[in-house]
């Protein structure tokens, strides 16, 4: 029995979808214990980071400026741990760099950014630039809205594409390279947090010293 004015779930027979808990089929007395049971002192790493790798940070710098900085692919030269030597390839918007986690390892990046939503997605791949399957999803948020204070919140999520487990283009890999990017998946949460901390430190230093967040050399 619904009390909503909208015909919610009216296309599906009642109780047809398993595992959907709504106030109509599971009242608060029944649902609260389920939620309490889900709360723990500690959570297994895999449960938190298994198929996803979310990291986030508050940065004491204006959100528009942080967005502009991140939206320029060359910012990765500064705040990432290991991506170096960015040059634009012959294909417009596709940048070539080296991921120094692997010897002689090329990384290709195309940045897809939307200013209104302040989303910055880096579409990347090791070795080849035809199929960019490693996607870094970033979103910049005005901290005034979410924390009631000036500054930025940056959310960054990766999803575990199946190619992390197996290199789909082994013929493009440099000879005798012993590692594959997916070998580091279990370290992504910590490694990305380290890079996020870099981003925070760099942006906050520039903001505190009156420097443009996006440095002049990138303009």
């Amino acid at each position, binding site marked *: 029995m619904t009390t909503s004015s909208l015909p919610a779930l009216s296309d599906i027979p009642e109780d047809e979808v398993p595992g959907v808990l709504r106030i109509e089929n599971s009242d608060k007395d029944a649902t609260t*214990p389920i939620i309490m*049971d889900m709360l*723990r*002192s500690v959570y297994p790493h895999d449960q938190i980071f298994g198929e996803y790798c979310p990291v986030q940070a508050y940065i004491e710098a204006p959100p528009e400026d942080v967005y502009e900085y991140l939206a320029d692919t060359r910012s990765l030269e500064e705040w990432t741990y290991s991506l170096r030597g960015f040059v634009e390839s012959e294909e417009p918007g596709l940048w070539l760099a080296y991921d120094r986690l692997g010897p002689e390892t090329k990384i290709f990046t195309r940045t897809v950014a939307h200013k209104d939503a302040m989303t910055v997605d880096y579409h990347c791949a090791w070795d080849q630039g035809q199929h960019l399957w490693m996607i870094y999803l970033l979103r910049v948020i005005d901290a005034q809205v979410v924390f009631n204070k000036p500054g930025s919140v940056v959310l960054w999520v990766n999803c575990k594409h199946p190619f992390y487990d197996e290199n789909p283009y082994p013929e493009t890999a440099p000879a005798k390279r012993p590692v594959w990017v997916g070998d580091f998946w279990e370290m992504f949460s910590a490694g990305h947090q380290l890079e996020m901390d870099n981003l925070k430190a760099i942006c906050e230093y520039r903001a505190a010293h009156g420097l443009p967040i996006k440095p002049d050399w990138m303009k």
Partner: protein
Amino acid sequence: MINSATPAEPDAPGLPTVSLVDVASYLPGAPIGTEYFTQYSRSDRMAKNVMFRSPKARHHVDRDETAVDMVERAVAPLIERHGAQTITGIDVLLTHTQLPDNPVMGCGPEVARRLGMRPKHVIDMHNGGCAAFVHMMAMARMILQTTDARTALIAASQNCAGPVFTQPDIRKLAQAPVPGDGCGVGLLVKNDSAPILDIECRTYPEFAGDMEFSTNGERKYWEPGEGEGCVSFTESKITKVFARGNRLVPEVALAVCDRIGVKGRDIDTFITNQPNRLFLRNWHDALELPAQRHPDTFDQCGNLFAAGIPVTLDVENRAGRLRNGSVVLLSAFAHAGDFAGAAAIRWGAAR
């Protein structure tokens, strides 16, 4: 007892070592089954509430049985094992009573009179809540280390289950079957036979005042009139307190582990307060301990508040499950999270 952790020597170099040389306990009356409460339940669903999932049994103190009576009965085995003179010669007496028989005073002096003691220090400790046993260990150790006192008796009495949670309106509530009554005592001696390796006690003022005692009406508890007195949290605070408890007990436990140089997973026996099953699961998970190294008496006794730690210690010790030389870690949080404490002992009181 799989692991033999090798913690560092007791902290505070230069101060004498204090040992928890024995524990004993007392449970009042015959076990009360959960059916006592379910007959009053408002609905079947309420009984299933996981936060307040019931123990199978609990003990209720008799209406005329005082906290002093409980302590006297809990101390009896200590007199048998250590001789009457050890108890009459106690230098320091610390007591904690959940529901004082007389609201304006604690039971310490009367316990001393009943047991024939003339202690130099008698202190009634009220703010340690469910962590009071650890709090009293810390205070007793401090007095033994810094004065010429040589022995201390600490006593934690939980006596609100029978009197409070069987009141006509209170016994209908989902949380009513959870508390049980009992009393646990510990004997501390200035020697190194069962050394207290370290203790951590923390007060969290930011969480003070989140637990209320009310008559479920306008009446102050000392005023005449209707309404049944009970400890209470609002629904939203229960979740907050749960999240705090999840964090606080491992936090102080691991602080002690860190200082004595032992990993949580190397602790031989971990004993905590036991408000409900979820906390027990979450706490040994946090220390990376299997459930069997985190014994409890929840199903037999319910939530024993401050008496939980010494009662479970005594049950485990009498069952021969506490090996001399093993590391026993105690940890608990109080009230809505305004106090937490942990203590590590190199056990030396095996039965």
